[in-house]
């Protein structure tokens, strides 16, 4: 079943994002760890990946690169999330292959819009 993969280490934000996306009709699988995100994504192709740049261990950038490479013919869309003021993170994310990015603090309505756009465009 197609799902959205969320990798976010702040548990409160993780819960909030899950609730919002489920409320918009999506199925969500979430993890706080980069390596788990890779495992999940490669186990079953997600509809979209929502990745925080800063994750313990394997970073969101690494997850993006790996998964895009794994599904090289049909890469799923990736939205990176980074903290404000880290323009370097945004650039790095786009370089790693991300399709879009969001800056914290997240505006939920904007998040849903970006997710919908990204899925539509892929």
């Amino acid at each position: 079943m197609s799902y959205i993969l969320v990798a976010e280490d702040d548990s409160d934000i993780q819960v909030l994002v899950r609730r919002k996306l489920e409320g918009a009709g999506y199925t969500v699988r979430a993890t706080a760890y980069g390596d788990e995100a890779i495992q999940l994504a490669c186990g079953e192709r997600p509809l979209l990946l929502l990745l925080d740049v800063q994750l313990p261990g394997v970073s969101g950038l690494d997850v993006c690169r790996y998964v895009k490479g794994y599904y090289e013919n049909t890469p799923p869309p990736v939205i990176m999330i980074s903290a404000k003021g880290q323009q370097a993170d945004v650039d790095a994310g786009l370089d790693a292959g991300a399709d879009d990015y969001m800056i914290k603090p997240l505006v939920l309505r904007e998040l849903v819009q970006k997710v919908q756009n990204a899925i539509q465009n892929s």
Partner: protein
Amino acid sequence: MESDAHLAKAPESEPSVPPPPFLTTAAVAILLTDLAGVVTYANPCAEALYGRPLIGLPLSGLASPYSRPDQDRAFRAVLNGGSFDSILEHLIKGERCVPVHLIMSPAYDEHNRLQGVSCFVHNVDDMMRFQRSLQHERDQFEAILESATDAFLMLDSNGHTALMNSMFGRLFNISRLSLVGRPIGEALRNLPHLPAKLVGLLLTLSQNAYHTEAGTFEIGTPKQRVLYWYTAPVYAPDGAPMGRLFTFRDVTIEREVDRMKTEFVSLVSHELRTPLSSVLGYAEYIIEGDAGPVSQEVLECVQTIHNNAERLTSLINDILDLTRIEAGRIELRPNWCDLGQVVRKVVEDVRPIINRRHQHILEYIPEGLPAVWIDSERIGQVLTNLISNASKYTPERGTIIIELGVVDDLEALPPGATDDVHVPCALVTVQDTGYGIDAEALPHIFERFYRSEDAQRRRIQGSGLGLTVAKSFVELHKGHIWLQSEVDKGTAVYFTLPISEGN
């Protein structure tokens, strides 16, 4: 011990031809001795100098006991065809022992026979005193240079090293010998271990007589250091160019402290933002209705929570920006931008706030404005701060006007501009019909955390950082910002952005 018998008073010598009259009016002390060293003639100046009749006295007796052996030795040498020109101590009038300049030469009579020694004597006490005080000043000056913690190097107008203090030597591991007195290019060639940046700096600027410049660079040898340097031409009091001075200061520690401060602020900001993110997110979730229907009262409460969390976020962002600007760690990301577009976007973003206060916003954006080289995000931030201020400090139903233009002429700038604005430039005006700013508050208005009494009395929300951040970003773009205001009439904030010609 040598016998002085031959210097004892000799019997009266033959009367010789009287000396020429000009000797009596000469302004230097002149003496003539016989072969035994006894004075046979002394001019009036000499008698005045020594304060006693000199004829018949041994020359030797005029010298102080300290100088006597040297003088006697010299006297004998002069008789043998030598000469003497030096400074000795003599006992002059008033039993004073002073330095004198003594010149002795062999004296011949009209038959060209050696008859004795002629002496010219000049009291150099004052001159010696003056020299000593000069030396003292020079010693003081050197002591100051040596104890300075800045490194100094001075090149004269020929490009030779005139002066170097020991701090310079320690900083770059160079000995005075290898630099002082030599042309700088040649000296540097023989010092291959020197950091390339230092060599480059000294060589390029040694060719330039007029430039004043400063900067920083890092060196790795002998130790990892960050150095601040400053160089300026040096002129003598009469305006003649004397050379060039280089100063170097070790600012490694200051830089380290700055870096730690920025890191600390970044860390703290990140820690503060994380929980704020949750507060904002969950509040929004409730407000959007995702948590189910809520009563109006609950909705209003949560809206308040959201608003305050937004204020807090703004405050943290502003503090982080200011700290980074101060530490010189803000990197602008400029591009060629259409200023009109930047303005329109900001107005669109702030429209909800304007509408809530039933205010009007008017934009005057002329056609054909040249593109400006700016970081549109940061200038956007400046505009947002100014427009948000305009809205806050204007009553409901008031008007805010934003005007863009190009200024070619210094005369055409609005009043209050400083002298150093460069034209042509782009000029942005944000004007309101609001409360205005008190004359007392005006000089402080750009200060960090400054809130005027009026603002506080009116209970207008603000951190006091909006204008500070705006000024910092405008100035980082090499622009200028100022304002004009009248109480109860309104305020106009002006800022310029340079337009580079060509390119």
